[in-house]
C-alpha cells in the first residue's frame, strides 16, 4: 500500500484562471522521505494543502483528480477526518502557535481528538522527545528561538500521531542553526518510521532523501535519487534551486561528482593533486585591500552605542564602528543578536540609550527619521508591511512625495528607480497582483526613488527562490558599483560570501567580528560558536588553508 498516491490532480483557485496544479501525478511509499522542490509558484504549497484536504474544503476552487492516502480516497473527506493520517506543518511558525506554553500547544491536537488526559500527557512527552524540546514544557512559545518554535509546531502535529508528515518549507524563515535543527528532526522522524514529504529550497536537506521530486507549472517534471539529480546543476538552477556547490565545483574541474561530502572531496583533491595556487590567492587578497582603499568618506559613525528596550532588556552593548561610502556590509548573527536593532539606529528609527550615532556627520538624536530618510533608505523584511497603493507608480512615489522632492522631479526619480529594479512597464500594475519577488523589488524601488546614499535591507532574500535571490542580489551589487553604500541583514551566508565585502558579526548585542568578508569567514571556529555554519564550499577551502568565497574564486584558484 502506498502512503500517497495522486492521479491527474488539477486545481484552479477560485477567481483565478491559471492552473495551480495541472495534471499532477505523484507516488510515495510508506516510510520514505521525499523532498519536493521547485521554484516559487510551481504549485508545491497548493499540492501539500490538497493532501490534507485544506484544498478544496478551506481554499475553494475548481478541483479534479484523485488522491489516495494510505490506500483510501480522500476527496470527500474533511480536514479533521484526515488529521490522524496526515499532518501538515506550515512555513510561518509564528502564526501557527497560539498557546500560553509549550505543553498546551502540543496538547491542542489531542484535546480536539477527545483523548483522555493521561494519554494526552503521554503524547506530549513523546512528541517533545522527538523534537528535542523536553524540559521546555512551561516555556512561553514567544520566548523560543526560531528553530525551537518550528520544532514546537512539528511536535504539535506529531502529538496527533499522523502516519505521514508533510512539511511546507519549514526552514525558510530560520537562521542556519535553526535549519540544521529541522533537518535533524526530519532525519529522526524517518528513522522512527514516519513517512515524510519535505518541501524545501535547499539542496542540503535533499541529500539524504529517498527521492527528490521537482515540480514546475503545477506538475511533476523530474524525479529521481538525490545522487542523480543533485549533480545536474543546470536542472536545479532552472527550477530555482541552488546546486550543491561542491558537486558543481567537481563537475567544473571534470572530476567524478560522486563524492558529495567534504572529506571525500578532500581525498580526491589529494589523490589528484589539486591545490590552491598561492599566486592566484595572493591576487585575491590584493584586490580586497585595494577595494578597501577605494571607499569614500565616513557616512555612518557609531560610538559606544548601547540600546536598552523598555523592560530593561539590553539589546546592544558597546558597539563602535564606522561605515564609509561605497561599502557593501552584511550584518549577521543569530536571531535575537541585535542585528535589526542596530540597523534601525542607522536611519534614526531608534535612538541610542547611550553613546551616539552620526549619519553624514549629524547626530541622529537631533534629526527626524524623515530628514535622515533622504540619506539612508531602509527596506523592511516583508514588503507587505509597507505596500498600500493602487499602482506600482504611486507606491514608489510615496517616499519622494513625503520627503519634499520637487514635483517635477518625482516622476523622473520614480522612472529611474523602477528601471533600476527591472520593473519598467509595471507603473500601472496593482502591486498586490505581483509575485513576492516582484513586490520585494517594488519595496526596493520605493526606497531608491528618494536617491539615498545608503540603502539598508533587512533579509532581502528570505522567502525567495534561488533565481529570485540571485537577481535581487545582483541588483544590489549594481547599486553598490554605482556608488550606493549597501547594508544587508541576513541569515544566508552564501549571499554574504558572494556579495558583501565586509561582515559584522553580532553576538548577544555585541560585535564579535568586524572585518573584510574573507578575514571573517576564515575564523570558522568563532563563527561556529555563534551557530553560524559557513557554506560547504568555504569550509572546504578553509580546510585547505585558504578562504575562498565563491565557486568562481575556487575555479580561479584551483590548479594542479
Amino acid at each position: 500500500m502506498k502512503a500517497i498516491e495522486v492521479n491527474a490532480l488539477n486545481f484552479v483557485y477560485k477567481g483565478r484562471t491559471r492552473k495551480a496544479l495541472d495534471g499532477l501525478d505523484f507516488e510515495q511509499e510508506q516510510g520514505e522521505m521525499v523532498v519536493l522542490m521547485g521554484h516559487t509558484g510551481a504549485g508545491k504549497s497548493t499540492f501539500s494543502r490538497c493532501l490534507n484536504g485544506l484544498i478544496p474544503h478551506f481554499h475553494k476552487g475548481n478541483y479534479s483528480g484523485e488522491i489516495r492516502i494510505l490506500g483510501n480516497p480522500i476527496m470527500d473527506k474533511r480536514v479533521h477526518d484526515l488529521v490522524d493520517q496526515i499532518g501538515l506543518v506550515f512555513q510561518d511558525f509564528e502564526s501557527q502557535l497560539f498557546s500560553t506554553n509549550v505543553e498546551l500547544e502540543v496538547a491542542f491536537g489531542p484535546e480536539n481528538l477527545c483523548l483522555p488526559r493521561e494519554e494526552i500527557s503521554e503524547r506530549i512527552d513523546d512528541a517533545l522527545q522527538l523534537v528535542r524540546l523536553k524540559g521546555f514544557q512551561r516555556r512561553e512559545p514567544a520566548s523560543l528561538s526560531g528553530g525551537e518554535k518550528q520544532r514546537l509546531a512539528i511536535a504539535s502535529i506529531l502529538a496527533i500521531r499522523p502516519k505521514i508528515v508533510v512539511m511546507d518549507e519549514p526552514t525558510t524563515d530560520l537562521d542556519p542553526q535553526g535549519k540544521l535543527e529541522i533537518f535533524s528532526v526530519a532525519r529522526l522522524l524517518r528513522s522512527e518510521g514516519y513517512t515524510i514529504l519535505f518541501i524545501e529550497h535547499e539542496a542540503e536537506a535533499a541529500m539524504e532523501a529517498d527521492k527528490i521530486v521537482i515540480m514546475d507549472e503545477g506538475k511533476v517534471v523530474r524525479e529521481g535519487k538525490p545522487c542523480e539529480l543533485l549533480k545536474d546543476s543546470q536542472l536545479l538552477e532552472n527550477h530555482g534551486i541552488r546546486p550543491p556547490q561542491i558537486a558543481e565545483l567537481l563537475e567544473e574541474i571534470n572530476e567524478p561528482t560522486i563524492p558529495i561530502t567534504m572529506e571525500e572531496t578532500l581525498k580526491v583533491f589529494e589523490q589528484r593533486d589539486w591545490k590552491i595556487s598561492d599566486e592566484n590567492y595572493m591576487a585575491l587578497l590584493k584586490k580586497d585591500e585595494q577595494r578597501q582603499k577605494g571607499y569614500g568618506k565616513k557616512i555612518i559613525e557609531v560610538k559606544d552605542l548601547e540600546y536598552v528596550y523598555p523592560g530593561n532588556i539590553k539589546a546592544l552593548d558597546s558597539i563602535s564602528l564606522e561605515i564609509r561610502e561605497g561599502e557593501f556590509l552584511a550584518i549577521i548573527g543569530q536571531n535575537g543578536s541585535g542585528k535589526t536593532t542596530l540597523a534601525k539606529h542607522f536611519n534614526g528609527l531608534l535612538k541610542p540609550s547611550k553613546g551616539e550615532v552620526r549619519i553624514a556627520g549629524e547626530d541622529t538624536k537631533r534629526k527626524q527619521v524623515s530628514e535622515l530618510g533622504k540619506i539612508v533608505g531602509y527596506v523592511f523584511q516583508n514588503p507587505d508591511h509597507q505596500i498600500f497603493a493602487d499602482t506600482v507608480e504611486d507606491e514608489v512615489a510615496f517616499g519622494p512625495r513625503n520627503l519634499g522632492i520637487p514635483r517635477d522631479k518625482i516622476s523622473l526619480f520614480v522612472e529611474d528607480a523602477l528601471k533600476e529594479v527591472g520593473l519598467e512597464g509595471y507603473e500601472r500594475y496593482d502591486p498586490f497582483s505581483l509575485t513576492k519577488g516582484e513586490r520585494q523589488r517594488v519595496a526596493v524601488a520605493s526606497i531608491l526613488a528618494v536617491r539615498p546614499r545608503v540603502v539598508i535591507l533587512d533579509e532581502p532574500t528570505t522567502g525567495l527562490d534561488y533565481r529570485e535571490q540571485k537577481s535581487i542580489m545582483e541588483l544590489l551589487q549594481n547599486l553598490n558599483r554605482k556608488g550606493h553604500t549597501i547594508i544587508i541583514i541576513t541569515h544566508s551566508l552564501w549571499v554574504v560570501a558572494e556579495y558583501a565585502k565586509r561582515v559584522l558579526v553580532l553576538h548577544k548585542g555585541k560585535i564579535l567580528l568586524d572585518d573584510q568578508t574573507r578575514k571573517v569567514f576564515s575564523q570558522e571556529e568563532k563563527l561556529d560558536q555563534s551557530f553560524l555554519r559557513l557554506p560547504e564550499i568555504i569550509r572546504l577551502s578553509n580546510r585547505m588553508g585558504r578562504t575562498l568565497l565563491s565557486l568562481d574564486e575556487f575555479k580561479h584558484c584551483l590548479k594542479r
Partner: protein
Amino acid sequence: MFIYLDKESLLHRLHPVTKIAGLILLFIWAMVFNHPLYICIVFLMVFFLSILARSLSNLKKFWITLIILAFFSTLLWSFFLRGPTQLFKLGFIQISKESLLYGLAMGIRIDTMIVSGIIFLSTTRTEDFTQGLSSLGLPFPVSFALSLSFRLVPTFAATTSTIVQAQKSRGLDLESGGLWTRIRKHIPLLIPILIYAIRNTDLLAMALESKGFGFKKRRTYYLRFRSTWRDWLSLTILAGLIGFCFYLRLNGHGVIFHRI
C-alpha cells in the same frame, strides 16, 4: 510580552469560573462609591489582591499609564460637572470642590478596574479562560475565539509597530497637518495592517483545522480544574464585602453626586 505570569499563588489556583466571576464582582465593586476616599479604600483592597496574586511586576509596567489616566480623568470631570462649592472660575471654566472630588474618584475607579484586569490576566492563561467560558456553557469555538483575541493583541501590536516604522522610514509624518490630512495619512498604515490581519487569520485558521479543530462536537482538556472550598470562600468574602459597601452607599455614605 504577554501578561500571564507563570507563578504559584492563591489566585492562580482558583477555578477559572471563579476568576471570571471575581473579575465581574471587582468591576461592580469599583462602581459602588463615587467618593474618592471610599473608592481609594476599594483600590487598596484590590491592590492587596494583586500582592496576593504576585502580579506586582505587571503593575509596575503600567503605573505611568495608571497615573496619567487618573490625572486626566480628574481634570476632565472637574471641568464638566458643576457643584455647589465653587473653588475656581475663569470665563466659562469653573471648578467646584465636588466636581474635583468626583473627578478624583472616577480616576481611582478607572485605575481600580485596570488593576483588576491586570490581576485577572496575570493569573489566568488564555486556556484557563477558554475552559472557564466553556464550563459556563459557551460552545468551545466561541470561547476559544474570545480568549484567542486576547492572545493575539500583542502579536498584532508588534506588527503594527513594524508597519509604522516601515512607513516612517519612507518619510510618513503622522504628527503634522490638519485633522483631515492626518486621517488620510493613516491609509498607508491601515492597508498593510488589514492585509496582515487577513493573511494571519487565514493561516491560523488553516493551522487550527490541521490540528483537528472541530473534529468532534466534544473535546477533552489537558488542564484540569476542580472547584474547592477556596473558590467558594473567596467568592463569598468578595460578595460579602460588596454587599456591605452597597449597604453603606444606600445609607448615604461614599457619595459626592447622586449618580454612579
